[in-house]
């Protein structure tokens, strides 16, 4: 009886579903051909591929433990120096920008903690080097999108650096000066979502900067330009609310604000959650869309020399 039941179950499972309208898992086959096997969640290799790339990105950076520890040390030292500057400023102007002294100090240490994961200095991507060496041609013929491939690896990198370079400066700041933390799980969640959105926005910007090498050959000029904009307008040096007048309004609307100022404000509970997340989401989507267009453009530009 049990054997018969399993036979029926097999028959039912073996019955061909009508999914000829779905795209094929095998790019060489198409709907209606013999080899057509429709993409279903089980056959879709894309999601596990990118999940694995996130893990590889994490592991690649986890190899260089000492470099990350040294980075955390440097970020912490600079955090202390900057905290004193902000303390002096808030002693002269208590309650400036709606922060009290402890919140200003917290701001300083969060921004130092975000330097690693948001990769505020330099692109942190292998693309410029690969464009110069010509390896980019290989990346472009892979059956996976260059944009999503790099994004996955970069998210892995950011997660690792968040743990190793993000947490120590915060702990040191808490031990030396005292920092605040989000009031409840809702605020923590808002911060984490905002952190993720900031990472994507940061990647989108750095991806565009990296692609520019394809036209400019040397990325140092654009790199330095991007460095100035990122340092100044991300909120890494000073809260953007301190920027006077029109400059401040401009700084708060530009994409760099999504990388540091927005997550920090949500951590401190100083900004409306939904609006801030929408702001970050818009910039992340816009930058990724521009990145996708850029990828298409370099696909047309790359010439593979035979040999």
């Amino acid at each position, binding site marked *: 009886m049990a054997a018969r039941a399993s036979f029926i179950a097999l028959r039912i499972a073996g019955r061909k579903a009508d999914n000829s309208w779905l795209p094929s898992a095998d790019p060489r086959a198409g709907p209606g051909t013999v080899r057509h096997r429709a993409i279903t969640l089980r056959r879709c290799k894309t999601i596990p591929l990118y999940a694995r790339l996130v893990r590889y990105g994490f592991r690649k950076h986890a190899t260089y433990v000492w470099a990350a520890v040294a980075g955390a040390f440097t970020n912490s030292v600079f955090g202390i120096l900057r905290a004193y500057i902000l303390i002096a*400023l808030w002693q002269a102007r208590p309650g400036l920008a709606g922060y009290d002294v402890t919140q200003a100090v917290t701001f300083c240490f969060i921004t130092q903690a975000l330097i690693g994961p948001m990769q505020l200095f330099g692109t942190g991507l292998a693309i410029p080097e690969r464009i110069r060496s010509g390896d980019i041609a290989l990346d472009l013929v892979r059956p996976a999108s260059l944009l999503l491939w790099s994004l996955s690896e970069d998210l892995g990198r950011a997660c690792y650096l968040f743990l190793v370079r993000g947490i120590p400066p915060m702990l040191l700041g808490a031990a030396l000066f005292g920092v605040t933390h989000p009031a409840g799980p809702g605020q923590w969640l808002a911060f984490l979502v905002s952190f993720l959105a900031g990472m994507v926005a940061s990647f989108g910007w750095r991806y565009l900067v990296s692609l520019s090498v394809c036209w400019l050959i040397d990325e140092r000029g654009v790199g330095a330009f991007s460095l100035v904009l990122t340092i100044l307008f991300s909120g890494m040096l000073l809260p953007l609310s*301190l920027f006077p007048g029109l400059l401040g309004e401009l700084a708060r609307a530009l994409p760099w604000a999504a990388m540091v100022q927005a997550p920090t404000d949500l951590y401190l509970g100083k900004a409306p959650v939904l609006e801030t997340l929408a702001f970050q989401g818009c910039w992340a989507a816009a930058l990724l869309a521009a990145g996708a267009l850029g990828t298409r453009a370099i696909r047309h530009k790359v010439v593979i020399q035979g040999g």
Partner: protein
Amino acid sequence: MVRSYFLLAWTWTRAAMAYPASFALTTVLGLFVAGTDVAVILIIFANTTSLAGFSREETLFLYGTANLAFCLCDLFVSNVDRISQHIKAGTFDTMLIRPVSAWIQLATDRFLPTRAGRVLQAAIVLGYAISALDLGSGRLWMVPVMIATGVVIFGALWTLAGALQFVLTDAPEVTNAFTYGSGQLTQYPLAIYGRDLVRGVTYALPLAFINWQPALYVLDRDDPFGTPGFMRFLGPVAALVLALLAGSAWRLGIRHYRSTGS
């Protein structure tokens, strides 16, 4: 020694000049990157008139003096901290058998003349601060002295950082906290920092003599931490002691250097 330094520096300059457009662009952009620090000071003083009792022009004076010394060292000495890359790649062995001191070869290694843009930026800020402060000419003789002191102290710090990398080959970035950290620390009046930190950078690592102590003399102000007046003039002594220490640390590092051999 000086001749070989400039010969090597000139070689790297000619190499960098091979791409004139890139050379000009990097110089100008270096100016802007350095300008972000000034922007921060200006934004802070857009929100307040005094920081720990110091006005905007006084802070810019401190920034200018410290940064001029720092950028001169960044231009002429800072490449010493690339030593860990040479140790790892094995190219440091080649430097040791050449007839020029290893320190000079390292200091001129990839000499980047484009960093001169930052020196210019610091000099402009200092010039503005001096003219805006309307300082009496009787005390201005201290300005070149303090810049020379600062160059020696920062140079000694970079040499120490290089010497440390014989030990810290895996994590050379640790020394950035001391070299670039010192550059950042001295940009602001030390009055904003905690008393213990200031004691540390006065008596242990003499960063206070780069610009803080002599600047108190030039600006004719009392030290908020109450150090006696004669300390304003101890800068050259502190610089000399630190330079000697750094020199012996460097020699010790080279003497104990063991090539990986292969």
